């Protein structure tokens, strides 16, 4: 069980949250001009790093706000959380597993 710090409510059980996948995927400014391949890339293709990952979470059983977290995909360590619209924090150092 992860202890996830909601930027509004503080640390809460993972069971209160919904996962939202990779963060900072911007919607295409001009969808009509995209090729099928570009559109598929926007809709379906995501990074899957072994290491730090900026991702979205929603405090579904609490304040029901979306926010971003920087989580290490090996150790599950959460280096930072930040509210929607706030700039991402600088990349953390190596995680506890020694991954980058």
């Amino acid at each position, binding site marked *: 069980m992860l202890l996830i710090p909601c930027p*509004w*409510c503080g640390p809460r059980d993972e069971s209160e949250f919904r996962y939202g996948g990779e963060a900072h995927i911007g919607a295409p400014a001009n969808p009509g001009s995209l090729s099928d391949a570009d559109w598929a890339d926007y809709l379906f293709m995501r990074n899957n790093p072994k290491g730090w990952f900026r991702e979205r979470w929603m405090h579904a059983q609490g304040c029901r706000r979306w926010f971003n977290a920087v989580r290490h995909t090996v150790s599950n360590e959460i280096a930072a959380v930040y509210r929607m619209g706030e700039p991402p924090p600088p990349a953390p150092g190596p995680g506890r597993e020694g991954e980058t």
Partner: protein
Amino acid sequence: MAEATHKRSPLADLAAGLAGASVPGRVSLAEEPFLAQIDLRGDAADGGFREAAGGVIGAALPLAPNTVAQGGRLRALWLGPDEWLIVGPEGSEGGIEAGLKAALAGRHVSIVDVSASRTAIAVAGAGAREVLAKGMGLDLHSRAFGPGRSAQAQLARAQVILEQVSGEPRFRLFVRASFAPYLARWLIDATAEYRIAGP
């Protein structure tokens, strides 16, 4: 129009069970049915919105997460950075809704009567904190959670809005009508140890 004679609270069948589970001096359980509940959304950064809403409630809207403001007969619970639950006595929902709509006319707000969505269960007494802690991951120690605090969280895996009403301590749990019988039975079970006669 359906009149009050037809109203039946979600825990009407469990009123005797809750009363029977209560142990004087240790813990008491009771439904608080039919509380007025209005969900209010608006821009907390807009001073005009805050002032107009606060005027109806009788207290400034709480801006700190998971806190409660008391104004006369009404309480305002923080639900989110742009969302509050205004709670009042039974039958006051129409007046609160009309008052907010009049005071906030022309603004980008949402005012919805959600009184029928949840019922409330009062959990009070010296053992109340311990009972709730059996099913919650929150820090409920009096140093961390006192009067005027609230939280939206899970109790025994049911989503609830919890608030501490007074220092007795007295808590109020808002729970969806469909989950209320389950949660009431869970509370009756969780208080069983206090019904065993002590030495």
